[in-house]
């Protein structure tokens, strides 16, 4: 279709997997982030601890769950605990990474998954709300944001509603609001590129573009002024082994990664 040997979804998953260090813990939901965590476990981070918001700890997943609380998430798990216990663990610093997404994001990584429109009482579009997102964005050490359909209506100067905190209004704003030092979004993975956040300005910074995408493409697709790293990498495509693991081991039924 695109002339590539992989889909953008697969590429994003592989990039997400590479952000996860070994001997750390990640809180996941379902879908792409879970696939990324499983891929990391099977490649570079065999000791990555996977924790589900609903209480599953370190399961041996046989098949991809379709809900963060479904039976699959505790299949041969080491512990099945409560949602509040998972939140408490995260608060106490046990969870290094969490994955987030949303309908809109601003330059400080603030996320909106609540509503489109200006009137909280009568929104144009009502989305699910925080769920665990605000908790993850407040309590985990690093949040990894995954956004597909990278465009100016999703990457906006001001989100309509801050559901989940990024760096809020900029440097020190998290700390001033009462959130813990050393936390916040660390990566934004889109279908065009990879961002981190500038250590001083806390503004989203382009660090890699996907094959065939230019810096200009990214700028045009983004509704705010981004930071650009001195050296822009080109994203490394998935290896054949990555793809084999995704299709044969992680998602043999093709729920997340349909085979072409």
């Amino acid at each position, binding site marked *: 279709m695109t002339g590539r040997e992989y889909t953008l979804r697969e590429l994003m998953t592989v990039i997400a997997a590479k952000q996860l260090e070994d001997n750390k813990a990640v809180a996941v939901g*379902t*879908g792409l982030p879970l696939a990324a965590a499983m891929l990391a476990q099977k490649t570079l981070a065999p000791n990555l601890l996977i924790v589900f*918001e*609903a*209480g*599953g700890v370190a399961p041996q997943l*046989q*098949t991809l769950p*379709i*809900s*963060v*609380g*479904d*039976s699959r998430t*505790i299949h041969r798990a080491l512990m*099945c*605990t*409560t*949602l*509040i216990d998972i*939140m408490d663990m995260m*608060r106490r610093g046990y969870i290094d990474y969490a994955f987030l997404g949303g309908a809109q994001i601003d330059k400080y990584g*603030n996320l909106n998954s*609540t509503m489109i429109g200006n009137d*909280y*009482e*009568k*929104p*144009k*579009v*009502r*989305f*699910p*709300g*925080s*769920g*665990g*997102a*605000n*908790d993850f964005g*407040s*309590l985990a050490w690093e949040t990894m944001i995954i956004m597909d359909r990278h465009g100016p209506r999703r990457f906006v100067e001001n989100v309509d*509603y*801050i*559901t*989940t*905190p990024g760096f*809020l209004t900029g440097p020190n*704003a*998290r700390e*001033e*609001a*009462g*959130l*813990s030092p050393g936390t916040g979004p660390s990566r934004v993975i889109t279908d065009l590129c990879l961002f981190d956040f500038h250590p001083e300005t806390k503004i989203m910074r382009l660090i890699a573009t996907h094959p065939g995408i230019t810096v200009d493409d990214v700028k045009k697709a983004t509704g705010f002024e981004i930071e650009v790293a001195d050296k822009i990498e080109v994203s490394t495509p998935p290896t054949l082994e990555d793809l084999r693991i995704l299709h044969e081991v992680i998602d043999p039924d093709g729920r997340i990664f349909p085979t072409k």
Partner: protein
Amino acid sequence: MREFTRNNKTRAMIDKRMDVDEAVKKYVKNGDYIAMGGFGHIRIPMVTIYEIVRQRIKNLSVAGHTAVQDIDMLMAGGCVSNVDIAYVVGFELRGLSGVQRRLFESGQVKKTDYTNGAMSYRVRAGAQGIPFIPVKVMLGTDTMRHSPGKVVKCPFTGEKVLLLPALNPDICIVHVHRADMYGNCQIDGHIVKDDLQVRASKRVIVSCEELVDTEVFRADPGKTIIPFFMVDAVIEQPWGSHPGNMPYKYYFDHEFTENYLTVGRNKDTSVMDKWLDEWVYSLDNFNDYITKLGAAHLYKLRDDEFLRPPKRGK
């Protein structure tokens, strides 16, 4: 809460079995604040949800704590006027609910946004019998600004925390794996927050897959999640979480839910009315609903739960 408990909750072991219609008539009132057990599509108390819709209870306030099929059915049935939101509208990977979008976007149903953690913490405070609880979530966001939470400084450390009010629902409905006639309950797999939510609530209706002898509890007291004296009604109803997932019993009814979602997304709301008539109002009770689903359909959900392939020669 304390006074209510003292005057309305017997500490005697009495037979609390009843049919779901009796339980709802007795304990669910128009205008009540209701909390449901389970999480998302998991172990949700659908038997009682369907009955609340059937009895056309109105003006419920709902703890929308990762509420999916349960709240959607209540909202489709016109039972809800207000929601404390942690997660609503979404059916996780299955997309958004037409029913809930309509009611929230028109402002017909009021709401306040919280988070999954925040709602659990509020229920923890309710269970502990304290009027508020300090939390470290929601800070700095619109989720906080639209909530009743108050930011204060800790008198011991000086750090900022958000105080949230305790939550004490009028009625909590839960579906469990097994209960005895007095209301003692065991749950397999995720407890989620049912332990706390039952404790925080004034009235508790329990439905169970299986009614068992009290001996089951005495043989393993560490496994009792809910003790009898917190429970007001016990309903035995196999498949009572359908179309949800009952861990170690049956998986989601994906087909049923997808069809339900499609119906709800139809701009012509009479399509949903027709669905409600067919699956709720025209049926006398949940056993009729189960019968209508049919044995072959249900047993497939059991196979799905255990990841068993379809039988050969089928």
